[in-house]
């Protein structure tokens, strides 16, 4: 892509993104400052930054400093997400290769899959309360679906030539699964990790909006209750930034793990 672009367009591409961001912020600031949109409905970027700096060290008015909210959310997300990986990936891989696994697990999976994860929220509150466990459960329920599907499809897409080759050497079903299907499915599995992360993060915010006492979703809810539009926007931005941060970390881990799988 980059080598078909001229040097001039590369330079433009370096400048334009900043220009576009700055103009959005400027217009945002202006529409509120000029009174086009009342300040009670929308905070200005400057107010959001001021609140961000204030919340770094102050617990009020919502009860916790910003870092606590961020860490709560990350903790819940990673708990649910890790459990989704640990259960979903092996399940999907096994379902892709072993008929018994597919026959047993698929009907249950297909039955639960169309239920939106947020629909679990009331039951999760009944069962686990508003603490970490309940939210981890909802995140698990939303993260496991892409894990299973991508692992399953990854195994199914294994080049049949490799399987035939292994069979002529007398490899057992388990050996073929372990040596051929799993490594061959890895790129698909890692693709699933990013999808699962996005799903988990979405479910997390939804779960916290409804029931929580800390966390970024809770911060947004409190902004609404306290009529503080700057806190709502801050919460939204922090959800986005934290999501990007986790995404980058997972991408790094993935690159390291599949360093051998260059294709």
């Amino acid at each position, binding site marked *: 892509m980059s080598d078909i672009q001229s040097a001039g367009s590369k330079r433009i591409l370096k400048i334009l993104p900043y220009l576009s961001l700055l103009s959005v912020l400027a217009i945002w600031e202006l529409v509120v400052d000029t009174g086009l949109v009342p300040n009670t409905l929308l905070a200005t970027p400057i107010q959001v930054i001021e609140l961000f700096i204030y919340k770094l060290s102050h617990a009020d008015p919502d009860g916790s400093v910003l870092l606590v909210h961020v860490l709560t959310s990350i903790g819940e997300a990673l708990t649910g997400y890790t459990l989704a990986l640990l259960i979903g990936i092996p399940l999907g891989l096994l379902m892709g290769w072993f008929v018994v696994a597919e026959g047993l697990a698929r009907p249950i999976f297909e039955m639960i899959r169309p239920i939106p994860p947020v629909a679990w929220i009331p039951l999760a509150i009944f069962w686990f309360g508003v603490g970490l466990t309940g939210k981890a459960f909802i995140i698990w329920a939303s993260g496991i679906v892409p894990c299973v599907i991508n692992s399953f499809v990854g195994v199914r897409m294994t080049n049949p*030539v490799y399987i*035939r080759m292994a*069979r*002529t*050497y*007398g490899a057992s079903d388990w050996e073929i699964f372990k040596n*051929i299907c799993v490594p*061959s499915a890895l790129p698909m599995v890692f693709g699933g990790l990013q999808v699962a992360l996005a799903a988990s993060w979405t479910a997390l915010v939804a779960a916290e909006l409804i029931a929580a006492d800390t966390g970024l979703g809770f911060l947004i809810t409190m902004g609404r209750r306290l009529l503080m539009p700057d806190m709502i926007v801050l919460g939204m931005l922090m959800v986005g930034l934290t999501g990007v941060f986790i995404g980058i970390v997972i991408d790094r881990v993935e690159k390291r793990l599949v360093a051998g*799988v260059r*294709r």
Partner: protein
Amino acid sequence: MSNNGKREAKVTVNGLTKKFGELLVLNDISFKVYEGELLCIVGPTGCGKTTFLNLLSRLIPPTKGNILIDGKDADPKKHNLSFVFQEPSCMPWRTVKENIAYGMEIKKLPQADLDQRLNKIMELVGLTESANLYPNQISSSMEQRVAIARAFAVNPDLLLMDEPYGQLDVKLRYYLEDELVRIWQELKSTVLFVTHNIEEAVYVAERILILTNKPTTVKSEVVVDLPRPRDFRDPKFVEIRKQVTELIKWW
């Protein structure tokens, strides 16, 4: 080399028949492959060569007939079978070296033997310097050499090759055919080489079996007792090539 009467039969195929539903694909195929022989099988396009090879490698069961290796029913778990496919078959997540070792790993060779054989075979096919490269870093002809090295490395009782050079250009093919003959002479494996390229068959084979159209059976046998290295322009070579071409004609 042509004294086949004196050689031991390594593989015996008796009345091999395959039907897919009512469709008779292979009809009563019988032949022998001698110990250490390089046998070529040629036939018209679409004559069921793939089915034939899948039966020999035990990927699918025959309708009738059997395949014996050293007098016992062929079984991939007991016998050393190897298969070189026409399509690239190197696993992209393994290096050249790990790909070549794969067959031996499945056969559970002790690590010391495995390393020794691995080094020998890599030397033989000239891949020692590429040992740690991944398949996407080497050319497709090198990939095919990796597949061939992997097949020879298990000391196969029977090595099946399904048009291994079908997708390569002519110049590379000549080179790899020479290499194949060299490895085979060195390791004395029993090789069954399927091709539709008559010149290739006459160039590498000790004996050529000619198949008929579907339902496929063995039409005839041509012994190629030319000295090696062979020359495409040798009148005897040309004569045998013509003979095989006449036999293969179905039009």
